[in-house]
């Protein structure tokens, strides 16, 4: 969809050439431009579902290997009718929202510090680089000891998971702010705080928002891990339970729920970008 070059048939060029040998200059532009093709995404989605369903019905896909989408849908309807859907979703969304918000806020704050102060950069950046690659799942037992087996450890897992990418996105964004704009602010005698608030923060906003996209996905990934131990409700817990019982229809239903959450979050961030970054071309 993006880098599609436009192919012109040479035949048409030859056909339009008239007797005096005049012919149009071959068109070589086009491509590398995004067009918005509204219904493509849902169509792709529906096509995959249809092929999958057909495969299952015809016996080509064994029900032991992969349940039909209709069965997974049945499991979802089941969840809905027993009222468990909201319990699971509520518990998961709470953990996601609290963990992601705290992680993002802390991440932006620390990222700003690293971006603005040499001392913070020298002291914290190696720490961030050292801790970012540590799988937060491996630390879950530690989190349980520190924050308790209840909500604390689950929120903490998501918080730590979203914190590091946000730090890196934020300080990268601060580094990328046009130095000339900062110099302009200084030359007009703007206070340090004003320069940070009115020049650096908005200038770093595009990077921070694309950091949000990544950290939100990481938060969903970690949700399942966080709900591995001691969670009664939650989409992750539901999936793990279904997995343990080999109830594949429920497993697929749970995964679909996670995807749906991911889609909605991406859409919300898209809205936010439109609002905050409308000044960009």
């Amino acid at each position: 969809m993006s880098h599609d070059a436009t192919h012109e048939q040479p035949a048409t060029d030859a056909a339009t050439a008239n007797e005096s040998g005049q012919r149009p200059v071959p068109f070589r532009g086009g491509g590398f431009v995004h067009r918005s093709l509204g219904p493509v995404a849902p169509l792709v989605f529906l096509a995959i579902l249809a092929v999958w369903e057909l495969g299952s019905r015809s016996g080509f896909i064994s029900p032991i290997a992969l349940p039909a989408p209709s069965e997974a849908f049945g499991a979802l309807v089941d969840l809905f009718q027993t009222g468990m859907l909201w319990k699971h979703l509520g518990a998961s969304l709470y953990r996601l929202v609290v963990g992601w918000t705290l992680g993002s806020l802390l991440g932006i704050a620390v990222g700003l510090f690293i971006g603005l102060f040499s001392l913070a950069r020298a002291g914290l950046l190696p720490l961030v680089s050292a801790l970012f690659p540590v799988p937060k799942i491996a630390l879950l037992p530690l989190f349980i000891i520190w924050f308790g087996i209840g909500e604390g450890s689950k929120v903490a897992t998501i918080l730590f998971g979203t914190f590091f990418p946000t730090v890196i996105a934020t300080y990268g964004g601060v580094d990328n702010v046009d130095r000339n704009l900062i110099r302009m602010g200084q030359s007009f005698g703007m206070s340090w705080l004003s320069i940070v608030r009115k020049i650096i923060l908005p200038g770093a906003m595009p990077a921070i928002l694309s950091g949000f996209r990544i950290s939100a996905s990481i938060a969903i990934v970690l949700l399942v891990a966080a709900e591995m131990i001691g969670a009664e409700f939650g989409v992750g817990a539901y999936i793990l339970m279904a997995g343990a019982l080999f109830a594949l229809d429920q497993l697929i239903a749970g995964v679909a729920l996670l995807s749906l959450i991911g889609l909605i979050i991406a859409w919300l961030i898209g809205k936010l970008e439109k609002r905050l970054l409308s000044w960009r071309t």
Partner: protein
Amino acid sequence: MQLLLQNITHHYGGTTVLDDISLTVDDGEIVCIVGPSGCGKSTLLRIAGGLEKPDQGQALLAGPEPDGSLNPLTYIFQDFALLPWRSVEGNVSLVLEDHGIAAAERRAIIADVLARTNLSDFAKALPRQLSGGMKQRVAIARALAVKPAIMLMDEPLSALDSQTRELLMDDLVTLWTRERFSACYVTHNLNEAVRLGRRIIVLSRRPGRIRDVVEIDMPLAERADRLAELETLQRRVWEIMREEAREADREISDVA
């Protein structure tokens, strides 16, 4: 208010960029600084504006600040330096917000400077919607809003096409005739220099030293009609610069 630069010497790494430069910008005077590329003009202007500390020498201000001046030394940048996320009036407002001015008065100042630069119709536009000439007008409006005593202009018209440059030069002359601002005006363009400068300071190639000073007594407002005389002056400045420029062109810059 007067700006005095005394014996400014400056190095970057091992390279001497400016060597013992002294000059004065008098009240209501436009001083143009020309010189070959890389001779340290921008550096000199940054030092004059207090954005950089010289290794030796000092930049001084003399005389009282004019009444109500919020930022006596005010810059105009070659690349306009407008915040892309703020509208035209937002960009002007930016430099007033730190001064504790009441909102109503601030709006009045903004409306006034936008009117003076013929931008009133574009108050709500974003920078990306404006042409280069318009952007530089916004930057000039922003500078006027803080009632500068001395404007420091670093190639303010270099990013513009020659027609727009002519228009903005006329605007600057009109503005100067009305307000008698002082300015230190750095440029590559000798035509701009002879059109706007009371004095033209010609710098040598790096390390920048004052090579010569050309004084032009012709009133600014008359210059557009006496281009023939300016032409001779411009050629004189070019004669002074030619050798320097040629040598500078052949130099290999070892500074990034």
